[in-house]
């Protein structure tokens, strides 16, 4: 009887400990925080703008000045939008920063490996060193692979597999644009960035609108308000 009672309490104790342990799965918490930080659609919108300007720049070099301005101002724009629309709804968090060397190093390594592999494949396909026209023609596929790499990295950070759909979409469109015979090889690259830019902008805007609707502004109240029962 005694040992049965003991076992019963031990089971409850262990169950409580398991619940406590689940609360401290820091990887899941971190992934959720990253996932939530991407729900607002702001990153997609600004990436869409960047890609649109890139396509315009390649189509007309006169747009280079606007592109440079966009690159400089994009961080500021993101900060302003977040301060004005996002933080009043979600609160503010300063995420841990990864070591820049590691991130940049990783990006360059991936860029280099993918580029080298693609060049090698084209060399095998043509039986000779690829011409500049061939290289331009296959840039959409290369960009698609870059997007796939970026989305795979984000999948790891957020724990969300849905994000890989963007990578799949980018690769599929890239392949289609590379295989399709455009009049000029650069047209494929320009149209690819235009389409991806519009896609990101539209999806980002839909997410942003949905976010504003589903996340009302909340306000921190001070202790005096709390004690007075003023929780508005």
């Amino acid at each position, binding site marked *: 009887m*005694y*040992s049965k009672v*003991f076992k019963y309490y*031990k089971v409850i*104790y*262990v169950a409580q*400990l398991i*619940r*406590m*342990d689940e*609360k*401290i799965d*820091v990887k899941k*918490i*971190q992934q*959720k*925080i990253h996932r*939530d930080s991407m729900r607002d659609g702001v990153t997609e919108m600004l990436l869409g703008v960047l890609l649109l300007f890139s396509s315009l720049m390649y189509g007309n070099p006169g747009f280079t000045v606007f592109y440079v301005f966009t690159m400089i101002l994009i961080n500021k724009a993101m900060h302003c939008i977040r301060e004005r629309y996002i933080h009043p709804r*979600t*609160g*503010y*968090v*300063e*995420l*841990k*920063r990864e070591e820049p060397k590691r991130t940049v190093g990783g990006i360059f390594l991936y860029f280099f490996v993918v580029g080298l592999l693609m060049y090698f494949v084209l060399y095998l396909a043509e039986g000779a060193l690829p011409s500049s026209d061939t290289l331009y023609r296959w840039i959409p596929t290369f960009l698609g692979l870059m997007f796939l790499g970026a989305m795979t990295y984000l999948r790891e950070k957020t724990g969300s597999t849905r994000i890989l759909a963007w990578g799949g979409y980018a690769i599929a469109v890239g392949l289609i644009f590379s295989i399709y015979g455009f009049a000029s090889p650069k047209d494929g690259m320009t149209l690819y960035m235009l389409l991806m830019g519009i896609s990101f902008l539209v999806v980002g805007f839909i997410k942003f609108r949905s976010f504003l609707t589903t996340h009302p502004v*909340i*306000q*921190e*109240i*001070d*202790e005096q308000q*709390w004690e007075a029962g003023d*929780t508005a």
Partner: protein
Amino acid sequence: MGSGGHSITSHPEPPAFPDAKAFDKTIHEPARLLMMAHLYVVESADFLFLIKQTGLTFGNLSSHMTRLEEAGYITVDKEFRDKKPNTRLSLTESGRRAFEGYRENMKQLFEEL
């Protein structure tokens, strides 16, 4: 002993409960544990963020915040942003070590069980 009677068997010594004293009682409370875990994975976060992420109420968060601050595990910075109160929390070094120690104790405990 009587004839045909049952022999008296002594009850075996029950196994010892895992040593709960090993747990930091400041952290070993569900709401505070949740707060510590969230602050552990970020540089800093404000009150509203923690309310959204943990699901705790304002009063609950406020009282646990005070307890953690008294223990020296978090720093609390209060300021005004756009004329609205804003409270930012971050884990101190001792808070970080305490949380890591707590996790280690939990891990050892489950290995013993």
